[in-house]
C-alpha cells in the first residue's frame, strides 16, 4: 500500500481497540446511499520507477529549447545551493508556523526575507508573501481602498502598460467589491504611460494609481512624475515592479518627492524556476503607516521567556482565522517555500551580485537590439530605454514567425497581437544574463531567416 505503513497485524489490533470488526464499520454514520464513490475510471497505481520513466519522456517533449520569452516570468541562473537547501525536508514539509517555538527556522528566514525585500524596495515593512505578482497587486489595490475608506467611490487608475494578465486578475478579484478600474493609455512613440491621459483626472477623487516599473513592454516608466502626480491627487501610489530590476533602477521608496505608499510584484526572478508558471510568489511592501492594512502573514521579532531573541507570526488580529468576516483578506497560505528560495538567492548574490545580474540582463538586451536594428522588416517599436525586454514590430504575422523559430528550437518571445491589437504584429522579446553573445547571434540569424521565410509565404 503506497505510503500506508499498516501491517495486517497492526490493523487487527487497531480494529480491536476501536471495537469494530472491519474498517467499513468506521463509516457507519454516513448514509449508505452516499457511499457511492466509484474510482474505476482512474488508472491503477504504478511504482516510482515506472512513473519516473513515463514522466521523463513526458517532460522531454518540452525540454531543450532556447527561451526568449519573458512577459512576467524570467529565466535566470539559479545557484545550485538555492534549491539544494530549499529541498530540505525541514523547510519543504513544515506547515504555517503556528507553533512558533517549533518553527524558528522558517520564522527567522521570513523575518530576514521581509528585511531584504523592504531594503530592496526602500520601504519600511514587508509581509511574508502572497500567491503571485498579479494577486499581490489585487491585494495592494484592496489595501489602498481600505486606506482611503472615506472616499465616496473607489476609482483606481491602471496603465495599459501594465501586464495584460495582471489587469485581468485584478479585474476578477477587485471588481467583486465595487471598485472601478480605469485604464490609462500609453504614448505610442515612447511606450510609456501618457501623462496627458493622466491629466484628464486632475483634481478628481482617485483612490490609487498603479505604476509599473519596468512596464509590460520592458520600458522604463517616468516613475517620479507618476508618483508625484498621485501624491498631489491624494491618491495612493502603488508600484508594481520587477524586484531584480530594483537592484539597478531607482527603488519605489525613492520615487518622486515622497516615495510610493505600496510596492508589490512578482518574486519569481529571484531564484524561482519558470516551472510552467508557478508556484511563484507575490511580494508586498509598504510604508510603516499602512502596516495594519497589510494583508497576509507577517513575522515579528520578539523575545522568549528568558529574554532571548525569537520570531512569531504577528498582527494576527488582521487575519481570517481570528477576525473571520472582518479580516483584511481571506488569505491563509503564503508561498513560504518560494520565499525560502528567494531569501537564499538574495543572500548568495548579495548587493553587488544582484546588481550585476540586472545589469548583465540589460546589457545583453542592448546587444540584441543593436543586432536586430540591422534587420530588414523588423522595427524596434519604442524609443524609451528598456530593462531586459523590448518590443519588435513586423510586417508579417508574429504567429508565423514564432512557428518558424520553433523549428530551430527557439522560443522567440511573447506574441503581443492578441493583447495589444492596436500595435499590429508585435513581439515582446526578453534577454537575461543566461544568454551569451553567441546565443544572441544565433537568435538574430534565425529571426532573419524566419522573417524572410514568412514573407515569402505571405507574398
Amino acid at each position, binding site marked *: 500500500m*503506497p505510503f*500506508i*505503513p499498516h501491517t495486517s497485524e497492526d490493523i487487527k489490533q487497531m480494529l480491536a*481497540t*476501536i471495537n469494530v470488526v472491519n474498517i467499513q464499520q468506521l463509516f457507519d*454514520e*454516513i*448514509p449508505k446511499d452516499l457511499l457511492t464513490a466509484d474510482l474505476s475510471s*482512474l488508472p491503477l*497505481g504504478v511504482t*516510482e520507477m515506472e512513473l519516473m520513466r513515463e*514522466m521523463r519522456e513526458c517532460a522531454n517533449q*518540452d525540454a531543450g*529549447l532556447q527561451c526568449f520569452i519573458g*512577459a512576467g516570468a524570467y529565466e535566470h541562473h539559479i545557484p545550485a*545551493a538555492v534549491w*539544494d537547501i530549499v529541498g530540505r525536508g*525541514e523547510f*519543504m*514539509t*513544515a506547515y*504555517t508556523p503556528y507553533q512558533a517555538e*517549533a518553527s524558528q527556522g*522558517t520564522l527567522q528566514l521570513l*523575518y*530576514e526575507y521581509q*528585511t531584504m525585500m*523592504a*531594503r530592496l524596495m526602500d520601504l519600511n515593512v514587508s509581509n511574508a*508573501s502572497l500567491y503571485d505578482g498579479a*494577486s499581490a497587486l489585487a491585494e495592494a489595490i484592496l489595501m489602498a481602498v481600505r486606506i482611503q475608506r472615506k472616499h465616496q467611490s473607489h476609482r483606481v487608475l491602471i496603465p495599459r502598460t501594465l501586464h495584460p494578465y495582471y489587469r485581468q*486578475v485584478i479585474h476578477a478579484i477587485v471588481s467583486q467589491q465595487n471598485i472601478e478600474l480605469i485604464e490609462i493609455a500609453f504614448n505610442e512613440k515612447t511606450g510609456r504611460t501618457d501623462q496627458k491621459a493622466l491629466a484628464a483626472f486632475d483634481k478628481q477623487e482617485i483612490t490609487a494609481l498603479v505604476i509599473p516599473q519596468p512596464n509590460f513592454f520592458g520600458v522604463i516608466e517616468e516613475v*517620479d512624475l507618476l508618483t508625484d502626480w498621485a501624491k498631489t491627487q491624494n491618491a495612493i501610489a502603488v508600484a508594481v515592479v520587477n524586484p531584480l530590476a530594483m537592484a539597478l*533602477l531607482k*527603488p519605489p521608496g525613492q520615487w518622486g518627492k515622497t516615495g510610493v505608499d505600496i510596492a508589490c510584484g512578482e518574486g519569481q526572478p529571484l531564484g524561482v524556476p519558470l516551472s*510552467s508558471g*508557478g508556484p511563484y510568489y507575490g511580494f508586498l511592501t509598504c510604508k510603516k503607516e499602512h502596516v495594519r492594512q497589510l494583508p497576509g502573514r507577517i513575522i*515579528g*521579532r520578539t*523575545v*522568549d521567556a528568558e529574554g532571548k531573541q525569537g520570531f512569531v507570526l*504577528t498582527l494576527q*488580529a488582521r487575519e*481570517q482565522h481570528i*477576525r*473571520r468576516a472582518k*479580516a483584511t483578506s*481571506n488569505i*491563509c497560505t503564503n508561498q*513560504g517555500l518560494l520565499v525560502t528560495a528567494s531569501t*537564499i538567492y538574495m*543572500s548568495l548574490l548579495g548587493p*553587488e551580485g544582484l*546588481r550585476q*545580474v540586472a*545589469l*548583465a540582463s540589460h*546589457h545583453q538586451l542592448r546587444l540584441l537590439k543593436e543586432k536586430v536594428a540591422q534587420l530588414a522588416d523588423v522595427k524596434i517599436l519604442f524609443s524609451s*530605454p528598456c530593462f531586459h525586454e523590448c518590443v519588435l514590430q513586423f510586417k508579417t504575422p508574429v504567429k508565423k514567425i514564432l512557428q518558424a523559430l520553433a523549428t530551430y528550437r527557439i*522560443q522567440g518571445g511573447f506574441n503581443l497581437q492578441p493583447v495589444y491589437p492596436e500595435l499590429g504584429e508585435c513581439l515582446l522579446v526578453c534577454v537575461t544574463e543566461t544568454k551569451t553573445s553567441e546565443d544572441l547571434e544565433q537568435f538574430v540569424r534565425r529571426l532573419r531567416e524566419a522573417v524572410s521565410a514568412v514573407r515569402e509565404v505571405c507574398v
Partner: protein
Amino acid sequence: MTQLIFELSQQHRRAASQIPAANYDCSDIPAEFLRKTLPRLPEVSELDVVRHFTQLSQRNFSIDTHFYPLGSCTMKYNPRGVHRMAMLEGFLQHHPLSLEVHSQGFMACAYELQEMLKAVTGMRAVSLTPMAGAQGEFAGVAMIRAYHRARADHARDEILVPDAAHGTNPASAVQCGFKVREIATGSDGNMDIDALRAAVGPHTAGIMLTNPSTLGVFEQKIREMSKIIHAAGGLLYYDGANLNAILGKVRPGDMGFDVMHINLHKTFATPHGGGGPGGGPVAVGERLVPFLPVPMVQKTADGFRWLTETDCPETIGRLSTFMGNAGIILRAYFYARLLGREGLHRVAEFATLNANYLLAKLTAAGFTPAYVTRRASHEFIITLKNEAKTFHITALDVAKRLLDYGFHAPTMYFPLLIPECLLIEPTETESKQTLDAFADVLIKIMQEAKTNPALLQTAPHTLPVKRLDDVKAARELDLVYIQ
C-alpha cells in the same frame, strides 16, 4: 542563538562564482532612473549562506522529522519521488507562455489531473488555477455570484456558514461582496436544521460547508440540508479541507454540492513549504461550468490546448498571472498516479482508522472527546476543559509540552465553540507505533499536569527558544532588521 544573516555580513565579501563578472554599462538609462546606492543585502560567502540556512532548517519541525497531527491540515507524507519528477528539466524550465506545441508535457499532466479530480469529486468540470484553498473559496463564491447574476437574481446577497467553519469561509464570502450569516451547531455536532430553515430565503445566495465538518464528524443530514438550500434557490459550496476523510468513499457531488475546492497540499500530499505553496483547484456541477476560472486544459484530436476567456465568455476570469501553482498541480498528479484507484480508495479508510484508533486509546486513558457518541472522521477533537480547571493548565500548555517530546502540537482552540480543545488529525501515513507513542506522551503529560503543572505552564523546555512573547511582538512591532 542563530545570528541573523545580516550579522554575518562583512563588507566586500561575496560568493564570487555566482556573480556575472564582466563590465557592463547602462549608460543608455538616464541617471534619474537609476538606483544610487546598492540595496543593503548581506555580503557573505557561499559557505556562510549554506551553513546559515541549513542551521535555520534544523530549527523547524516538519513532516520529514516529526509526527505532525495538525487538525484540518492533513500533514501526510510528501513523497520524495513526486518532488523529483516535478523538478525534471522539461517541467522546470518550461515557460508558462510557451506555445502549446512546446507545452504538451505539462498540459497532458494537468488535463489528466482535471479528469481525476472530476472522478473523485463527482463533479462535472474542474479548473486547476486557484493557488490555495482560500483562493478556491473565492473562486467558488464568485461563481455562485456570477450564476445568480446571470439569472438576474440580484436579491441574493447572503452566504450562510456554520459557526464552526474555517475562518477563510466568511472572509472569502465578504471578499466577494456578500454578507455572512452564521448557523449554529447542534449538541450532536450536526448543524441545527431548524436554524438553517429559518435562515434561508430569497436573499440566500448559498452556504459554505465542509463534510465531515471541522468538528471531526460527518454531517448526517447533508441531503436534507441540500434540499433546503436548493429549494430556497441557493447553491452549496463544499470546503474541501476535509476531503481526505472521504476520498474514494463519498463524492461531494453526490451529497448535493454545486461547487467545491480541493486542497492539493492536504489531500494530494504536496509539500506545505512552511506555509505554502498550496493548491486549490475548483470543481463544479453542471450549473456553474460556464463560470469556471481560466485557463483550463482541453484535449483535442491535435493534442492539448488552453481554454481562455475567448472560449469561456462567462468565466469569472483569471486568478493568477499564468496557470496557478503549476508545479503543485504536477505533484498532485504524480501522487495520484502512484496511488492509483486502489491507493486513493484506501486514503480515507486508513486516515479514518488512524483517527478512530487514537481517539479510542485516548478515551480509554481518560481524555474527553468533544462528541462522545460519534465516530471520528479523519480527525477528532478532545477538550481539556476539565483538566484546565483541575490542574490550572490550558490546551496551549499541553501543546507546548508536546513539542518537548518531539511531537508537533495538534491544532489548538479551533473550532472556537469547543473550549480548551485540541483538533487531532493523524493522517493515513502514520504507523500504529507512532500513534501509540503519541498517546503515551499525552498520558504522561497529564500525569505531569497533576504532579508538576509548572512543567507544562512554562513549556517548551528543549527547543531552541522558550515560550515566546506574542504580546510584545504585536505591541512593539519589529518586522525588519534595523542595523
